[in-house]
Every structure is written in C-alpha cells, then in structure tokens.
C-alpha cells in the first residue's frame, strides 16, 4: 500500500471528463497529489487514469481507488477483487488509495459518499465491474490500434494483452497512457460468473501486511507539520453547555499552548497529547447542565413503560390481531428491554484538521465523507469542494464513525488557533459521548391455537428515533424503520400480525450501532418466538422451520445451521443450546449457540457457535467467515456485558473496566457456513450480530428454564 494513503490526495481537477451515462465512468480523473505519491519512486510518467477507480502506471502498478471506508470489514480487498475480475489485471500489481470526497464516489444507498448498512459490496458490485470491464476494453483497444489489428483478435490475461496470431504482447502499463485518451465504451459485456477466477475465491486481505508492523495509518496516527494536539472538555450531561471557564491552571501545565472555546466545549491545545490531557484535567469549567440533568436509566425505562398504553405508528398490520388474541386458546405476554450501548471502537475517536483562508484539510477515520466535508466547509464558510477529506484506515467503526462531531471539534479548534491540530478523545470521552445504540422497550403478546401453533402476534416498541436524530424530517408518519426492523419484518407465517412504534425521546444521543435496529429487535422477536415454541410444546427449530414456509432463504440458513450443529443429536451432559434466525440488510443468518451454565457459581460458558449465512453471491468467502466471527463476538459482548446506564443525565461507565467487552479467555469456537447462491451479493459486516443474542438467551432458557428478557445477562439470571 502506498505511503500516500492518507496524504496523497490534496487537490483534484479534471483534465477531461466523459461521464458515460449510467456507468458513472469518468475519464481523465486527474489527482495530482496521488500522481506524485505514486510516481515519485519509480517513474517520471504519472499513472494513467482509466476511470474514477483505476489508475495504471507505466510499471504496471494498478491503483484501485477505494471509495468505501475500511474499518475492518474487509471492503478494501473486496473492491479490488471485483475490479480485478473484470479488469483482468495481475493481482500482485494492485495498490490501493482511499478516495477523496467527490460526487463520483457517492454510495447510491445513501445518496452520498459513505460506508454503512452493509451496503458496500451491494452498491459497488455493478459500478466496479462495469468500470473494470470498460477499462479492460480501452486497454485492448489501445493495444489493437498500436498493432493495427482488430480488437477482437486480441485477448488479456493477468495484466498482459496478447495478439496470438502475430505472437505480440504488451503489458497494461505499456498502453495505459494511450488507453486513457480513448472514449469510455458503453455497455461492455461483463464476464459470465462461471469464468470468475477471483470473485468467490477465498482471498487474503490486502491490508494485512501493513497491519502487522505498525505501518497502517489510522486517523489517530496522522501527523502534519507544525501540528498541535488537543483534548476537548465536554459537558458530562447531554444537551448541557459551558456556563463559564477559567483556563489559568490549564495554561500553567507544561506543554499547553492555548485554551479555546468551541461549540462542543473547551479545547485544550498543547504540543503533545499527554500535555493536552493534563491541561484538560487542570481546567476549571462550570457547566450549564440543561434540561437532562435529572435523567436516569430508571426514569427512561419508566418513560418507555408509560408509552405502552399509547397507540403507536403502524409498522405492520396483517389480519386482525386483537380479535385473534381474544379468541386464542392460549395468550402469551412478555416485556423485553435493552439498555443503551456504546460502540467502543478500539481506535478512540479523533480527527486532524488544518484550516487555511481558502481551504480546509481534514484527516479523519470517517465513515461518511460527504457529511464530514459538508461540516468542515460550513464551519469555514467555504464551498464543499474546498474542504478536502483524507480518509484514513478506521480502527473500528461499527457506525460510530458515521458522526461528524469529531470533525466539528477539530475544524473549529484549528480555525480558532490558526494551526493544524489533532483532537484525540480519551477512552472515557468515547464511552461517555457516543451516539448510543438506543435503549428500547417492547411489549409482546401472542395467541396460540389449540394445536400449539401461533394465530396472532402483536408488538409495541418505544425508543428514540435514530433517523430523526441524524436526518430530521426523514421519517414518514413518525415511523422510523430502524426502530422496528427485526420485528416489523417478522418472516413467520402467522395470520394476524400487528407491530407499532411509539417514538420516545429521553434526550440521550443515539446512532447506528452494528446491525442497528435488528440488534435489539432480533433479540426481542427471536426470544419471544422461543417462548411461543415452548408454550405450544414444539421444538424451537421445528417450530421456526415450519413457520418459515414463505421465507425460503431463511428456511435455508436455519436448516443448514441446525444440521451443522447436530440439532437432531443429543448433547453431552451439561450442555444446552439455543437457536435463532434473522434477516438483516437483505441477508440471512441462523445460529445455534451451545453453552453450559454453572448455576451455583451463577456463571456461563459459551462453547460453540454455529453460524449459517446467505448473502447472495459471495465475493470473498474468507472475509465472510471473518465477519461472521467478528459480528458474533460483538453480539456476545453486548449480551454478556453491554450496558450504558444514565445517572443525573450522564453516562456512568468510563473505560473497559466499567464497560467490559469480550476477551480471548471467553471466546467460543465459531463455525461459519455459507449457503451457495447466485443471487445478487449483499453485505457481511452486520448480518451475524442479531441472531447471536437470542440464540444465546434461548440456550440459557434450555439450561435454566428462565427467560432472559432484559440485557445484559445478569448473574441472578443464571441461578
């Protein structure tokens, strides 16, 4: 990977543009900074740009421009695989650069440049293949013209163009410059998937080597000439602000340069991070705590409970659930509840900014370049095109780094001091000033017929709206789809279903947390399903399987997981298991979790998780397995430990001692199985989070006979 990953692209201009209709191809997309970074060590001739994503140097280096944020999910490698398949370049010659913020890189899933919602492979699949095919066609044409032969008599193989009849050959680098001057061809035929030699093959990550020797540049590693370091003091109560402050003691700390007030608090600026930390500790601030100073987890839970008597926005209505409930042989009711959760990315939040009169440069581990660009431009009174976003590697994202709060802090601080500055958050800042997975409260009722099968299902959910917090006015009829996903799309054949949502705003900032609404609603719905199976005296697997008769892909993953887990075979003494199946982000996953419980010690051990996934055609099976493992661990952390609690309007947890996450000594064995599919590819990053928690809690029920209806799991739940 080029060392210019974070610094190469400072300014862009178009030599020649030829936007080719729906393909979005741009010819001559000229990026001077990148050229310098790439060309300097090897050649004086800059690499030729064939489109917005592909540059080829005279020495055959193929640079793929990565327009999604790499935060561990493996997208950098996947995008290169998709591009290389159609471009037919030599895999060993691939380099990567992160894209600047530009319209060419908008993600159609969001209408802006950004990474989230497991949308990356899904949204890049067509554009990247088309770009690769068109670029290959241009290279072929350039070679054919040079040889004065027909293009159809030439072929490519591994980055070399051959004219077999005359035994001539030329590498891509040899004709790249000529190719870049050709018009972009339209509708170049794409490969038949049967010919794929890269897509679908387990492939090692391209970013691994740089991640084993400290070379990978994360946002927090950015260093700019004359850069200063800042820590920001923020009001501990959400919605509060600075009443007054005295910087005398902070400025007396050796290394502290200055103290400035910004929108989100007070920035203490120093010549290193440590001095900034000491300075912030010495700072005297009086906070105006605002209207949320009395909020507590208990008051928030009570607020949610009060909402259960209201009728919410209708998320799903089929049949007449109320009547069916009344007439049912058995009625089951349950209340489920989950707390707020922090993301706890390993890389603490940070951002570096350099504000000048005519431009602003931002180096950030951001998931949303367009939003970062808009924020930086607005603060500086500049046009967005004069705000340059340099995306670094992200040390974890999970939705947290979609925010622009850290961009705002760095840009405002740089603007105030007239120097480049890196704002670094402490772990405590990160835990206490997150955009949390919403706390949520849900009331369920179901009717079961005399035959043990369900006839009615109702759910009412109360929680904050993420979409209204981030994109005000974006929801219709007060219904936020992210608040109900995982319940509203209940896939089971139950004749009467009703789901509604009561938007409730306790004043705690909320955001997108890996798998979003499905993270809590999957727990709710799949545990309640287990309750229905038990009430109807059915096997939890058979119960689901039969009711998934209209959901073939869920049916498929459920059967595969059960088969691989040996659901039909007895477990060793002391072992118990639970099962769950869910759709998330147009993908499908089922899991079987195997545990043992020491009821005397009130402790739990998770031994094994079997996961089956169906995400359409798979680009990199090796990465799907990694993401499954990753998502399962993320879900397991939330089930066993995850709780952000509020007292006096502030978060009680601070660091990994009070907000624990899974460590290696609690790691189960994870097995992942992929359903072969030729459906359009979807995304792997979040899919395996939602089934883990309900499968685990259903296993605990199997072991103890007790239902877990609130998280995290407590010692007393295991007694």
């Amino acid at each position, binding site marked *: 990977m080029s060392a210019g990953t974070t610094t190469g692209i400072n300014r862009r201009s178009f030599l020649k543009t030829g936007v080719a209709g729906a393909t979005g191809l741009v010819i001559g997309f000229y990026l001077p900074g990148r050229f310098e970074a790439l060309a300097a060590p090897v050649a004086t001739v800059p690499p030729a740009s064939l489109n917005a994503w592909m540059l080829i140097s005279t020495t055959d280096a193929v640079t793929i421009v990565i327009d999604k944020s790499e935060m561990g999910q493996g997208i950098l490698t996947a995008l290169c695989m998709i591009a290389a398949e159609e471009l037919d370049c030599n895999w060993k010659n691939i380099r990567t650069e992160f894209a600047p913020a530009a319209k060419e890189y908008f993600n159609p899933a969001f209408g802006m440049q950004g990474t989230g919602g497991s949308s990356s492979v899904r949204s890049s699949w067509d554009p990247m293949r088309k770009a690769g095919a068109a670029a290959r066609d241009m290279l072929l044409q350039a070679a054919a013209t040079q040889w004065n032969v027909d293009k159809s008599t030439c072929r490519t193989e591994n980055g070399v163009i051959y004219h077999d009849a005359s035994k001539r050959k030329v590498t891509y680098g040899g004709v790249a410059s000529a190719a870049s001057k050709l018009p972009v061809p339209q509708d170049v035929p794409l490969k038949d998937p049967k010919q794929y030699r890269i897509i679908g093959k387990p492939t090692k*990550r391209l970013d691994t080597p740089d991640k084993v020797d400290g070379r990978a540049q994360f946002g927090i590693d950015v260093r700019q000439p004359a850069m200063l370091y800042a820590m920001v003091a923020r009001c501990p109560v959400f919605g509060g602000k600075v009443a007054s402050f005295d910087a005398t003691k902070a400025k007396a700390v050796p290394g502290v340069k200055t103290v400035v007030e910004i929108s989100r608090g007070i920035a203490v600026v120093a010549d290193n991070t440590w001095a900034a930390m000491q300075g912030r500790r010495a700072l005297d601030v009086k906070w105006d705590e605002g209207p949320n100073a009395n909020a507590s987890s208990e008051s928030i839970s009570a607020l949610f409970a009060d909402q259960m008597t209201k009728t919410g926005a209708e998320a799903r209505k089929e049949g007449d659930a109320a009547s069916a409930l009344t007439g049912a042989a058995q009625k089951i009711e349950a209340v489920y509840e989950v707390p707020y959760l922090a993301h706890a990315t*390993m890389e603490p939040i940070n951002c570096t900014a350099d504000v000048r009169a005519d431009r602003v440069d931002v180096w950030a581990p951001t998931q949303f370049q367009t939003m970062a660009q808009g924020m930086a431009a607005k603060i500086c009174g500049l046009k967005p095109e004069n705000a340059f976003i340099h995306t670094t590697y992200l040390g974890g994202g999970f939705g947290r780094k979609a925010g622009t709060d850290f961009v705002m802090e760095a840009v405002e601080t740089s603007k105030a001091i007239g120097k480049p500055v890196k704002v670094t958050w402490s772990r405590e800042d990160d835990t206490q000033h997150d955009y949390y997975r919403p706390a949520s409260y849900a009331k369920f009722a179901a009717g079961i017929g005399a035959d043990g099968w369900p006839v009615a299902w109702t759910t009412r959910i109360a929680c904050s709206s993420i979409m209204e917090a981030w994109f005000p006015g974006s929801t219709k009829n007060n219904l936020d789809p992210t608040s109900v996903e995982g319940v509203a799309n209940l896939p089971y054949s139950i004749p009467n279903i009703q789901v509604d949502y009561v938007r409730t705003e306790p004043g705690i900032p909320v955001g997108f947390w890996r798998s979003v609404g499905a993270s809590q609603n999957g727990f709710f719905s799949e545990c309640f399903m287990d309750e229905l199976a038990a009430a109807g005296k059915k096997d939890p697997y058979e119960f689901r399987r039969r009711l998934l008769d209209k959901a073939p892909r869920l049916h498929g993953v459920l059967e595969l997981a059960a088969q691989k887990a040996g659901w039909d075979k007895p477990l060793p003494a002391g072992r118990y298991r639970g099962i769950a199946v869910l759709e998330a982000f147009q993908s499908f996953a089922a899991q079987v979790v195997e545990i043992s419980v020491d009821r005397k010690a009130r402790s739990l051990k998770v031994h094994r998780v079997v996961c089956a996934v169906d995400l359409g055609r798979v680009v990199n099976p090796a990465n799907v397995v990694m993401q499954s493992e990753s998502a399962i661990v993320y879900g397991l952390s939330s089930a066993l430990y995850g709780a952000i609690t509020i007292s006096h309007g502030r978060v009680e947890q601070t660091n990994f001692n009070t907000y624990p996450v899974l460590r*290696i000594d609690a790691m189960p064995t994870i097995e992942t199985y992929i359903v072969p599919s030729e459906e359009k590819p979807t995304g792997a990053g979040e899919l395996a989070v939602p089934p883990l928690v309900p499968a685990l809690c259903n296993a605990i029920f199997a072991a103890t006979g007790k239902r877990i209806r609130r998280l995290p799991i407590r010692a007393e739940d295991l007694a």
Partner: protein
Amino acid sequence: MAIQLIVNGKAQSVDVPANMPLLWVLRDTLGMTGTKFGCGMALCGACTVHIDGEATRSCITPVSSVAGKKITTIEGLSPDRSHPVQRAWIEVDVPQCGYCQSGQIMSAASLLAQNPKPSDSEIDEAMKGNICRCGTYQRIREAVHRAAALHKASATPSRFDGEDAKEDAFNEQAVEVGGAA
C-alpha cells in the same frame, strides 16, 4: 529534562516530563505511531511494547522508568515482517481493523519468548489483557500456535539450549534491528 532511551536498538534522547507515559513519547515525541492508544489504563493492551523483552503497557509506564532499558516496539520487531509472529499473523490473516494488532503481536511475541509451545489456555491467559473489538480471538489463538511452529522450524537447536533458552529469536530479532520511525 533529557531522558536517554534505547528504542529498537537506537539511542534516543528525549526532553519530556519524567512522568510522561512512554506511549506518548513514542507516538508524539518520536513519531512512532505503530504503538496504539486504546484506554490509558492498561486495560486493553493496544499500547504493548517490550521492555527488556517483557510485554509492558506503555500507556501507564512513566518514561523515566525505562531510561537505559531496551525498548522494542512493533516497528522494531523485525525489519521486514519476518518475525515468526508477524509471519503467522499474515498466514492466518488475523487483523480486521488492525488497530489492536500491534499490541496483540507484541504480547504474543513475549509469550512465545517465554513459552515456545503454549496451550490454548496458556495463550488465553497471556493474551487476555489485549482486547480486540473485531473479535479476531479465534485467529489469534491459531496464529500463536502457527508462530510457535514457524519458530521451531526455523530455530537452530542451540537456541533452545542452556543460557540461550530465554534469548531466542523472539527477543534477538527485536533488539538487533535499527530504529524505525
């Protein structure tokens, strides 16, 4: 005041407060950003370096306490990713986001220097101070075993004899490499 450090075999003089944690001296003063900040309280292991071969959390280690000692960071583990742990990490494709991996690798290298063939539970015990939010733990276990095998295959028998036993390749490579930054 000037403090004399030996970082990856190279003498460095830094003029910083005596109580400044080594982590920030490495990252901000010396510009060696491979060692990561994660928690500031020795809770996550992202900042792990070797002090005289011992895995140490640099975020709570005052710089004055390591003056004159051999400090090895991820940049100095090998000049070319050839340390058995780095090779194993690449073979097994351990990293995802990669942020915690410098610390994971330094902890694993220290473990293997002391215990060339650790069991799963010994790996868990030695590595449980290192958090990975991407959940790469299963691969870390596998890669530590792989590194042990790679090391055994490459080491000359004399390295495991007598006095040399503790000064094996895991440590040797680390201290012989020149400074990187």
